[in-house]
């Protein structure tokens, strides 16, 4: 039986990587990811985890070492945040394009300048199109559950893709939460052993990472796109299997008091729990509002989103990142594009807030929802509004 423990979420992430019996961890320290990699180093130093811990000299090399480890068939894990994720950027494309599975937790952090170690989703949005499977968590339990699922998904022979599990910097990484930590035997039953079908092996030489002239590049990219979309089925399978094994179920889009609600708020990540409290309060006041939370960011769950919002009149999307000079927050842009050709669709209102670690309180979410309803009736001169900024 799983033990219920009070534990900092970062430490729980490291404990779960240990339970998954990872072979290689290559990491470079960056706030707010540090506690994850420090605790992994500790587990290795104490002999509790038998893994190669590579203390690389940069995040670029962290991700590059992960490529190498994955290419010989090792179970591979890393973690990063903010600028670190940006330094990995070009390597992220290689991991997915070369079908090298690995799991990375991202302690979501704002981007410089000005320097900010605190949380938002600017780092995630910059790596949106890198071809990784990307899952968002709202609390510590969801983080560790999804890290377990991420190993299964990444290493499944039908998938063979890298997976990011996103946890908001500080709001999740540095929280001490009650967490059900599974037993080793439960994890062993849940995660199948990993065998890459074509590892680098002198007995069966393969060539990996050739260059492609125009005559074949498009075909390679099409295959990758088909593969990432097809991965959704496998993600759903493992979430279902996880639910049956551990009693906690996950879905690409999750709804809270949203059925038949005329006004919906959409959030991603740890802010969702505060947003739920705001929805509870407004419901008590007799307001017809609900919440939709996006869990699977890539592959994007088009159908599930359309289903979740089809009966609403207003959909208010909160982004924790700016698309400078663009049409809306990045999440809102995608939601709008998913709904554009639908006959029945809500008005979509875009807010950007919670940048660089600034909190949004229950009252804050009430204000966002009320302002969103107002904009839906009166219109706005702006493409989107930034919430809580001193003018």
């Amino acid at each position, binding site marked *: 039986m799983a033990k219920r423990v009070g534990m900092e979420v970062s430490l729980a992430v490291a404990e779960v990587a240990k339970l998954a019996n990872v072979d290689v961890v290559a990491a470079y320290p960056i706030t707010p990811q540090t506690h994850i990699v420090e605790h992994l180093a500790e587990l290795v130093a104490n002999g509790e985890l038998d893994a190669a811990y590579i203390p690389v000299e940069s995040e670029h090399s962290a991700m590059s070492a992960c490529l190498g480890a994955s290419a010989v068939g090792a179970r591979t894990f890393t973690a990063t945040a903010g600028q670190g994720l940006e330094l990995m950027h070009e390597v992220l494309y290689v991991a997915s394009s070369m079908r090298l599975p690995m799991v990375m937790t991202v302690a979501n952090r704002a981007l410089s300048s000005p320097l900010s170690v605190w949380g938002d989703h600017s780092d995630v949005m910059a790596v949106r199109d890198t071809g990784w499977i990307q899952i968002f968590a709202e609390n510590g339990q969801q983080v560790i559950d999804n890290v377990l699922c991420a190993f299964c998904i990444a290493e499944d022979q039908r998938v063979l893709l890298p997976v990011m599990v996103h946890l908001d910097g500080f709001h999740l990484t540095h929280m001490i939460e009650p967490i059900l930590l599974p037993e080793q035997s439960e994890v062993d039953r849940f995660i199948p052993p990993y065998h890459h079908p074509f590892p680098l092996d002198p007995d069966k030489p393969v060539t990996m990472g050739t260059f*492609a002239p125009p005559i*074949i590049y498009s075909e390679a990219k099409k295959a990758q796109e088909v593969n990432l979309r097809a991965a959704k089925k496998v993600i759903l399978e493992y979430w279902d299997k996880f639910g049956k094994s551990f009693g906690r179920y996950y879905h690409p889009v999750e709804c809270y008091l949203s059925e038949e609600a005329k006004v919906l708020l959409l959030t991603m990540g740890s802010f969702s729990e505060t947003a739920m409290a705001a929805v509870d309060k407004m419901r008590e006041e007799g307001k017809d509002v609900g919440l939709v939370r996006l869990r699977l960011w890539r592959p994007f769950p088009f159908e599930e989103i359309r289903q979740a919002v089809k009966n609403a009149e207003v959909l208010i999307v909160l982004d924790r990142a700016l698309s400078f000079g663009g049409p809306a927050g990045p999440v809102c842009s995608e939601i709008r594009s998913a709904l554009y050709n639908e006959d029945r669709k809500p008005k979509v209102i875009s807010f950007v807030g919670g940048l660089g670690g600034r909190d949004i309180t229950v009252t804050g979410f009430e204000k966002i929802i009320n302002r969103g309803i107002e904009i839906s009736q009166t219109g706005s001169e702006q493409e989107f509004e930034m919430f809580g900024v001193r003018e």
Partner: protein
Amino acid sequence: MMEKYTIYVPRLVTRRENFAPGHRACIGCGEALAVRLACKALGQNVIIVNATGCIEIISSQLPWTSWRVPWIHTLFENTAAVASGIEAGLKAMIRKGKHPAKEVKVVVIAGDGGTSDIGVQALSGALERGHDFLYLCFDNEAYMNTGIQRSSATPYGASTTTAPAGKESIGQVTWKKNMPAIAAVHDIPYVATACPSYPFDLMEKVAKGAAIDGPAYVHILSVCPTGWRCPPDLAIRIGRLAVETGIFPLYEVENGQHKLSFDLPKLRPVTDYMKLQGRFRHLTPDIINEIQSKVTEKYGELKQKMVKTGVAK
């Protein structure tokens, strides 16, 4: 003696070509020859990690390959880090019983740009961490794959497309970065310089580097007729002249002990080497004298480091 041996090299070493013929290197490519010889020295139980560059481009094109050993290319600047992951991953899996216990050497192939410029951070990190791998830098003294742009390994006075000779410039205005010395100050067990114009010496050094437990670095001067603007049939001779003029001395640094591979009692004048190459054609006698002085000085410094002098082979 060497001059005659060279003809018989292919008969004296393994016939197996792990770097298969049919690749798309330029005629007279010193680097392709050096890679071929290195592969003969390495044998089967290797994993090659190739940086972006000439060799990657000439040997791989989806869906073809020139490689009969496992080979991976990912990016330009990260080869030493990828090698770190492969080496550490294999070691961990073997220890945990997830992988058959066999000796596999991880070998990096990279050019001078991928080594001394964009990849120097990853290389320094991997050397410092002490991974068991062999790093082969094939130095053709510029970014040849992208069209002869200068690197930090381009020699003083050479004309390249991004440091061209002109009315106000001699071309390259900086002296060649001493990459083998940079590798050596990491206190790794083995550093050597080599050149395919001395094939036995090259193969011995590659084999030695591969056999050593820990990081090893071999810096291989690779004549590039295209970039150096010299006749392809002179590629071997020019490599020989680079050594005989003292411009590219062949030596080893084994556990900190320096050893000269060839004793050169008298250096040939640098003009013997430079006059065969179009990249130096614009240089005035003043500049050539300056280069001669520098080469003589540097060779003297190197000789002082040698604790014992190797015997000429």
